[in-house]
């Protein structure tokens, strides 16, 4: 079996943090990622960053900040054709709902509200129908301590249960703002095990889900429909699929 390629689809750079996108990308390359998406908040001017690196793929992304659900759909329309990865900044009940009901959204990021995980059975079902991935952002575990961390872990545990039940794609990200917020894929898998995610699920959340999002949106890759799988050229030459 070939080694899976790992991707981190929620990474912030300047102007969200103080780190240049190139620094983020080279750190990600060093710790073993095949690609990252720079997803700065849409509240910044020039949120979409385009970087060309040799050793690692850097995808264009955006994290949409909407104060109200009604504003979200307009924002999605504005950015959809400019980015490879379209993320919605969750955390508000109405915004979460609007995000999972829009098939043009790729990922609902950190849906957890101060009260709960931010996902219920209705939202999970919509997310599954519209193929919107639910994010598990590891920075919430890394950066918090004590009661906050306990709460985050139990929200993640509940979200995982719902996501499993309805077959929603799950995505594991660092949501890094600085290059020290990144963690290597194996460490991400270990962190995910803290709230009950199995090893296989975590590997899919770092490789398969991101690949589906990227190749679904990449215009050069062409349309993919049910039953049609992307096969990487180098794997094909090795005769792996023959």
């Amino acid at each position: 079996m070939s080694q899976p390629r790992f991707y981190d689809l929620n990474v912030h750079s300047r102007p969200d943090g103080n780190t240049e996108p190139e620094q983020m990308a080279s750190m990600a390359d060093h710790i073993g990622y095949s690609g990252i998406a720079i997803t700065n908040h849409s509240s910044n001017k020039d949120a979409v960053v385009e970087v060309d690196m040799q050793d690692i793929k850097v995808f264009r992304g955006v994290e949409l900040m909407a104060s109200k659900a009604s504003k979200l759909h307009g924002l999605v329309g504005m950015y959809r054709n400019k980015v490879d990865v379209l993320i919605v900044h969750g955390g508000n009940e109405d915004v979460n709902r609007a995000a999972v009901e829009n098939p043009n959204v790729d990922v609902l990021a950190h849906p957890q509200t101060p009260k709960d995980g931010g996902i219920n059975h209705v939202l999970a079902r919509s997310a599954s129908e519209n193929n919107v991935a639910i994010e598990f952002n590891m920075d919430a575990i890394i950066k918090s301590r004590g009661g906050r961390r306990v709460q985050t872990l139990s929200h993640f545990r509940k979200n995982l249960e719902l996501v499993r039940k309805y077959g929603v794609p799950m995505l594991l990200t660092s949501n890094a703002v600085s290059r020290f917020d990144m963690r290597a894929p194996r460490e991400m898998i270990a962190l995910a095990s803290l709230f009950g995610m199995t090893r296989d699920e975590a590997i899919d959340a770092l490789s398969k889900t991101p690949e589906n999002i990227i190749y679904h949106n990449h215009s050069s890759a062409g349309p993919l429909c049910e039953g049609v799988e992307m096969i990487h050229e180098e794997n094909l030459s090795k005769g792996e699929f023959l």
Partner: protein
Amino acid sequence: MKILPPTLRDTKRYLAFELVSVRPVARNDLIREIFSCASYLVGDMGSSQCGIRLLDFEGSRGVLRCLADSVELTRAILAILSSVEDEQAFVYVLGVSGTVKGATKKCLEHTGEVQAGISDTYI
């Protein structure tokens, strides 16, 4: 006291790691931070099950010992570490081995590419 025969000793794993930080970190500060992370995350009971021990730490590389059946938990503890002495830092596990020798080898294998990266892009 007589030492335990090999079959009754705990099986251990050795983790080769790299600490990525802006400034060099002292060994004692790193030990304190790792144990503080362990006690926050898994408490006294969990820490005793992990049996973490820092064997070697020089520059930015080191070897850490843990019990064989708690490698994943140890990894999670190391991943939780986000700063040492108020300086941002993180641990990147280079490899896991059943012997110190193997872990040291994994440390050395990575040397070339890391230094090439560190010089211009990280700092």
